[in-house]
C-alpha cells in the first residue's frame, strides 16, 4: 500500500511541500515498521497539513505544540515511531520553547521542520528564519530581527541529532530522515522548502545553487565534533551546508527513565492501581 493518500491537496501547485510529501511517503513505505505503528504529530500551517495527505495515524494539534504531544505519545508507547512535523513559524516561533526543551529531554522522536522561511498559511509574514531585510505584509521595511539559525541553536542545546536537508533533493531528504528515525533520541531535520507564493527570494534555484552535503564536500567532516559542527552551522549565504551537521550519543529518555527503562509500554499496561495498602500510611 502506498503511503500517499489520494485526496485533494490544499497546497499551491508547485509548492516545495509536495516533494517532502513524496519523500516521506516513500521512506515510510521502506521502513521496517508496521503502518499502524507510525504516528505523525503536526501543528498548524501549510506544512502541518502533511499527515492528512499520507496514510498514517496522526494527531494534528495546535499551532506550535506538536512536540509536547509527540513527546508524550512516544513516552507512553515506545513501540510507536513518532514523527513531529510542521512549519518554521510553528516550530521555531510559537513552539520555540518546546523545541529547545525537547532537545534536553532527548526522547526518541524525529522532528521535521518544513522551513520555507515564511508564514505560509497566514499569508506571508516573516518567520524566525526569514532573512534580514525581506519585506512582508507586516514587515513593510523588511525584517529587522536576526535570522534564527536552528541548526546552531540545536547544537547549542546539545540536541542529539541535527540535520538539514532540501525538499528539492528527494534522495538526500529520504536518507537524512531515515537516519533521523533510526537515531535513538531526539532528531531535528530542518528541511529547506520553497514557498513559491510568499517567499520569492528563497526559491528552488536559490537553494539548489547553495546547498551542499557536508559529508560529500568534506569527507573528513565529523558530526560528533560539537565546536566544528557549530562553526559549520554558521555558514549561510553563497554556500549552505546540509546533511547531518551534528550528532552525539546521549542516552535517550527511555533509556534513562526508571519507569520506562525496562521497556514498559504504558499504553498497554493500563490497569488501575490498588492503593488500599498505600492509604494505610495515612492511619
Amino acid at each position, binding site marked *: 500500500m502506498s503511503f500517499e493518500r489520494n485526496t485533494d491537496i490544499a497546497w499551491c501547485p508547485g509548492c516545495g511541500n509536495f516533494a517532502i510529501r513524496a519523500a516521506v511517503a516513500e521512506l515510510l513505505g521502506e521502513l521496517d515498521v508496521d503502518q499502524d505503528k507510525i504516528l505523525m504529530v503536526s501543528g498548524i500551517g501549510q506544512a502541518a497539513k502533511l499527515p492528512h495527505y499520507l496514510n498514517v495515524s496522526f494527531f494534528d494539534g*495546535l499551532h506550535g505544540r506538536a512536540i509536547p504531544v509527540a513527546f508524550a505519545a512516544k*513516552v507512553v508507547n515506545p513501540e510507536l515511531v513518532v514523527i513531529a512535523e510542521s512549519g518554521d513559524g510553528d516550530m521555531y516561533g510559537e513552539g520555540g*520553547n518546546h523545541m529547545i526543551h525537547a532537545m534536553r529531554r532527548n526522547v526518541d522522536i524525529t522532528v521535521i521542520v518544513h522551513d520555507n522561511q515564511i508564514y505560509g498559511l497566514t499569508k506571508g509574514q516573516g518567520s524566525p528564519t526569514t532573512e534580514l531585510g525581506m519585506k512582508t505584509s507586516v514587515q513593510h521595511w523588511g525584517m529587522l530581527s536576526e535570522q534564527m539559525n536552528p541548526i546552531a541553536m540545536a547544537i547549542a542545546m546539545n540536541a542529539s541529532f541535527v540535520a538539514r536537508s532540501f525538499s528539492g533533493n528527494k534522495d538526500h531528504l529520504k536518507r537524512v530522515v531515515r537516519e533521523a528515525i533510526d537515531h535513538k533520541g531526539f532528531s531535528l531535520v530542518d528541511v529547506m522548502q520553497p514557498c513559491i507564493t510568499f517567499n520569492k527570494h528563497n526559491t528552488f534555484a536559490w537553494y539548489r545553487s547553495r546547498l551542499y552535503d557536508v559529508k560529500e564536500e568534506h569527507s573528513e567532516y565529523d558530526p560528533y565534533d560539537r565546536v566544528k559542527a557549530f562553526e559549520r552551522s554558521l555558514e549561510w549565504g553563497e554556500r549552505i551546508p546540509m546533511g547531518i551537521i551534528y550528532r552525539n550519543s546521549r542516552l535517550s529518555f527511555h533509556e534513562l527513565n*526508571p519507569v520506562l527503562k525496562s521497556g514498559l509500554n504504558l499504553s498497554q499496561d493500563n490497569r488501575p492501581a490498588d492503593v488500599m495498602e498505600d492509604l494505610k500510611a495515612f492511619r
Partner: protein
Amino acid sequence: MNDIMIGIAGEAGQGIQTFGDAVAKALFRAGYNVFTDKSYHSRIRGGEYIYSIRIADRRPFCIRDGYDLVLSMSEETTEKLLEKATDKVYVVADEDHKDLEKATVKRFSFSKMAEDAGEKRAVNTVMLGALMSLMSVEQEVPQKLLEDTFGDKEDVLKANIRALRKGYEIALGYDLPDIPRRDNKSFLLMTGTEAAGYGAISAGCRFLSAYPMTPGTGVMNVLAANSEKHSIVVEQAEDEIAAINMAIGAAFAGVRSMVTTSGGGFALMQEGVSLAGMTETPIVAVVAQRPAPATGLPTRTAQEDLSFVMKSGHGEFARYVVAPRNAREAFELTRKAFFIADKYQVPVFILLSQQLVDSSATIEVPSVNKEHDQRFIERREIDDYKRFSLTESGISPRVIPGAGTIIRADSDEHDEYGFISEDLSLRKKMVEKRMKKLTSILKEAAEPLWRNPDADTIIIGWGDSWGAIDEAVSEHGGSLGYLHFSEVFPLRVDEVSKLSSKKLVTIEGNYSGLFGEYFRSVTGMKTTHIGKYDGRPMTPQWILSRLVEEGMI
C-alpha cells in the same frame, strides 16, 4: 461542639510543618478527630507560619475563629495571631520568649531539655512530648512517629526519644475540655493533595505533566513519589502549555493522564483545553485555586476560578467540572473525573483550593467505585475506522494508536475520520455531536447535598466551603439550611422548586458571587451574595456573623 484550637505560631524555616504534622498525626492515632490548616507566606524562610490543629467531638472540616492554646515559636507571629484569639488563650513558649500584650505567656525550658537530651535541634520533640502528655496520648504513639522519621539515624533517634520523654514530664497546665477519643482504624488523616493524588494513582493515571505552581504542585509530588511503584511517568514541563499538550498526547496514545496547576498556570492551558475538547481527548486537570488575579497570593485560598474554569477554552465543547468538598471527595471525585473523561472523551476539571490542598482532615476511607475503572478503549484492528463517527450519544468508539488501526485527530474542524474538513453542514453535525454529550454527563452527576431544606434561609455553596457551611448550619439550627454542590458543571438542580419563596444566599470564596451568577443563569433565581476574598478559609463564626449582618438570619 466541644473542641480545641491549637496554633503553632512561628516562621517558615523553623520546621513547623513537620512539627505540626507530627502533632496532628499523633493526636489522630490517639483517636481524636483532627483537622489542620496551614497559614503561611510565599517565602522559604521567615514570615508567618501558623499551623492550626483543631480537635473536636465531631469530625471537623474547617477551623474556627480563635485559638485556645498557642505554641509560640515567634513572638511576632503570635502577637498577630492573638489579635484574633479568645481572651482565655493560653500561650506556651520557650524560656527566652518575650512577654506579649494580649496574653500571659507560660514559659517552659524546652530548649534546655532538648540540650539535656543530647540533641539541641530536638526542641520541637520536647514540645511534642509536652503536648502529648497534656492530651493524655500514650507515649508509644509519638515515639513511633520519631522512629519512622529518624529510623536510619540511631543516635538522633535516641536523643529524640529522650527529648520526647522529657517533654512528657512537663505539665503545661492547660485545662483541657472533654473531647472523646475512639478507635480511628477506619479513618484516615489526609490532605486534599494526598487524597487527589492517591485518587489519581488509584484511577490508574500513568502520566502526569506539570509545571510547578503553588498550591497545585503537591499533587505532582504525590505522583512523583509513587512513580516507580505505580509505573507513572511524571514529567516536569518547560511551561504549562507543554504540560497540557503532553497530557493530551499521552491520553491520545491511550493512558489516563493529567495535569495539575493553579489559576495562572491554567490560564496558559486554555488553548490546550480547547484542543482536548475538539479532539475529544480525555484529560483531567487539577486546578488548585489561590487568590488572583495574576500572581495574587500564592499561598492563600480562594474560590475565584469557577467561571474561568467552566468557560475555559475558546469555542464550545462538553466538559465536566467537580469541586470536592473535602479530602474524601477529592479522592473519589478524582476517580470519577478520570471515568467521565474516558467515558465521554472530554476534558474534566477538578477545582481544589489552597485550603483543601493543605488541610488534613479525619476522613472515612474513601470508597473505590469499580465502575470508574472502565476505560472505554478498544485495542483492535478496524478497517476504515472513523474516530469521530456520528452517533446518537455523540460518543464515538475510541481506538488508540499502535493496535492495528489508523487513527486520526485534528484540531481543525474535521470529518468522521478526523480529516480536516471545510464542509459546513458537517461542521454543524460535529458541533452537535460534541455538545450533546452534556445531556448524558448531567445524568452522571450526583445530587447536591441538602441540609434542612425546610429552613427559611438557604445557603447555596460549592466546593471546599462545605466544612464551614455545614458547621454553621449545625450551630444555628433549623431555620438555616443549605444546598451544596461538588459536581458543579453541568449543574444538576432537581428540586430547585423547593427554593422558591426562601431567602437564598450564596456564600463563596470570591467577591462577585460567581456561583450565584451561574445558579441564576440556570434557574433564574436571584441570590444574595456573601463573599470572602481575603485569602483565608471560611469559618462557621464568620458565616453566621455575616448572615446576621445581611439580615438573612
